[in-house]
């Protein structure tokens, strides 16, 4: 008999949850950028992994190759990612949504290939490491505090905490901004760009701003990814990363920042938990099966709850 065993041990293991938590937190920040683009402005950004790569690599290069302080490199790398957003947006945001999407995915692939081949700067496929000393200091400082409650031996707990504090602060800030007149213009663009233009709104400027903020959030996610992996390599920034970001978005619900966090938690719990599926199959087949399971879940979700966990169904079905 074949056995479909599923060890529940994993779920009581704190290491498992810390690992899932860091991934979910990183993807939350990553997909918040997608949310402001896709969910609130209606621009389809398929290049989010590219902005993440630019952020992570710029930070790494500035620290390792140029000897910058980690804390200075963060804002500098964020500015570089935003400039990349501006550069991509200027010629291509005037295009129709689907063409824009193609441009962004091409951009992200260009970034990845450059990272792969500019070995002097990026270390190529070997990757880039040694940028996280400053973070290690902070991490140990937090671990010292955690010692008091007997959690001092959880090495990755500080990263989990900082990731999620960042994610939650971002969700709060973005939610507030979305309710301002500025956010209202973004929503109007999502609904009908021409209507917004006819009412005197410079929609192009708003789309650029949305893209640049999305890029900054992508870069931010890149820093957490870099700290989690301890090295940056091109394969971390494949287009797949962006599409998992979209899965998070769809799962959590369009036009909901809190939904992004829920979507990321559900998706990564699922993706990681299915690792423990004990099937009489080769490891790579199990790995493929995990994604099939997630795909199936998304299909079921689309059928029974198309608006996602926190999305508003009414906003979905109302059309002109």
């Amino acid at each position: 008999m074949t056995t479909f065993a599923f060890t529940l041990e994993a779920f009581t293991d704190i290491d498992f949850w810390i690992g899932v938590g860091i991934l979910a937190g990183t993807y939350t920040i990553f997909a918040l950028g997608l949310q402001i683009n896709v969910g609130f402005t209606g621009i389809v950004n398929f290049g989010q992994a590219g902005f993440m790569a630019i952020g992570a690599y710029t930070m790494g290069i500035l620290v390792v190759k140029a000897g910058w302080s980690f804390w200075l490199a963060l804002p500098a790398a964020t500015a570089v990612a935003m400039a990349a957003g501006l550069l991509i947006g200027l010629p291509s945001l005037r295009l129709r949504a689907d063409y824009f999407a193609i441009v962004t995915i091409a951009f992200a692939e260009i970034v990845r290939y450059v990272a792969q081949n500019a070995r002097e700067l990026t270390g190529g496929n070997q990757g880039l490491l040694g940028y996280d000393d400053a973070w290690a200091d902070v991490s140990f400082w937090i671990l010292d505090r955690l010692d008091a409650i007997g959690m001092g031996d959880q090495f990755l707990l500080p990263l989990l905490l900082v990731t999620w504090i960042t994610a939650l602060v971002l969700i709060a800030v973005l939610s507030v901004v979305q309710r301002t007149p500025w956010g209202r213009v973004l929503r109007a663009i999502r609904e009908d760009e021409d209507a917004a233009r006819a009412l005197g709104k410079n929609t192009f400027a708003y789309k650029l701003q949305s893209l640049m903020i999305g890029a900054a959030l992508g870069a931010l996610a890149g820093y957490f990814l870099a700290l989690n992996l301890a090295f940056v390599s091109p394969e971390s920034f494949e287009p797949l990363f962006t599409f998992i970001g979209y899965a998070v978005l769809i799962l959590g619900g369009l036009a909901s920042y809190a939904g992004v966090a829920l979507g990321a938690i559900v998706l990564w719990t699922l993706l990681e938990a299915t690792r423990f599926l004990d099937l009489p199959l080769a490891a790579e087949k199990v790995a493929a099966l995990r994604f099939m399971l997630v795909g199936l879940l998304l299909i079921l979700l689309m059928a029974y709850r198309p608006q996602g966990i926190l999305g508003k169904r009414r906003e979905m079905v109302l059309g002109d």
Partner: protein
Amino acid sequence: MTDDGPILEVAGVRKSFGGIHAVDGATFDVARGSITALIGPNGAGKTTLFNVVTGFLRADAGRIAYDGRSIFRSAPHAIARRGMVRTFQITKALAAMPVIDNMMLAAPAQPGERLANLIMHPRACRAREHEVRERALERLAVFGLADKADEYAGTLSGGQRKLLEFARALMVEPRFLLLDEPMAGINPTLGARLLEHIRELRERRRVTFLFIEHDLEVVMRHSDRVIVMAQGDVIADGDPASVRRDQRVIDAYLGDVR
């Protein structure tokens, strides 16, 4: 800025799509404070002309001046900000936004539409928002939409959407309104109310109107001037009575209507 010259001057405007000359040398003026109708058979180029004049399409050639200054190839939002505001033939209600947000969006001079001001001048943003909300609610009441303020615009009927779009355009505080078939799909009672508003805005604030309309009854009774287009060009331009008698207009459009 001239105070008495025409509010809109259009001269020799051309717009082609491939081999089709949608607008082919149209020339006309719109007098300040007038209610001017733009009529013509389907495919005459009326809506294309609207799109060109309001910056949504780039003209191939010609001259367009609003309030004495050229707006040839200006961006739509820049034109709207100067007080020349349009509506659309197919209503563009922002469906997944509440009615009140539709209205408030349109108000000009909201500092909170810039991110920097939200941080630097939050009080000014809130004050303006408060002001705009009051005004939006007043306007909605005028058009019988007050009880719909918090509903999604997508739940409104077709006629209500037309009214919302008109009310929303008024929020921009326009001096010149271009309406693309404002009466289409509105029941006669609401239509009468809309026409009443148009007249009142003209009398009280000297707003100028240019509207595309197929209901000749409305055109003849409510406009001071009628511009007739056919095949991309203006074929007649004058007061309603003379246009009605114009043989070219009868041939191209009116037929036997008396």
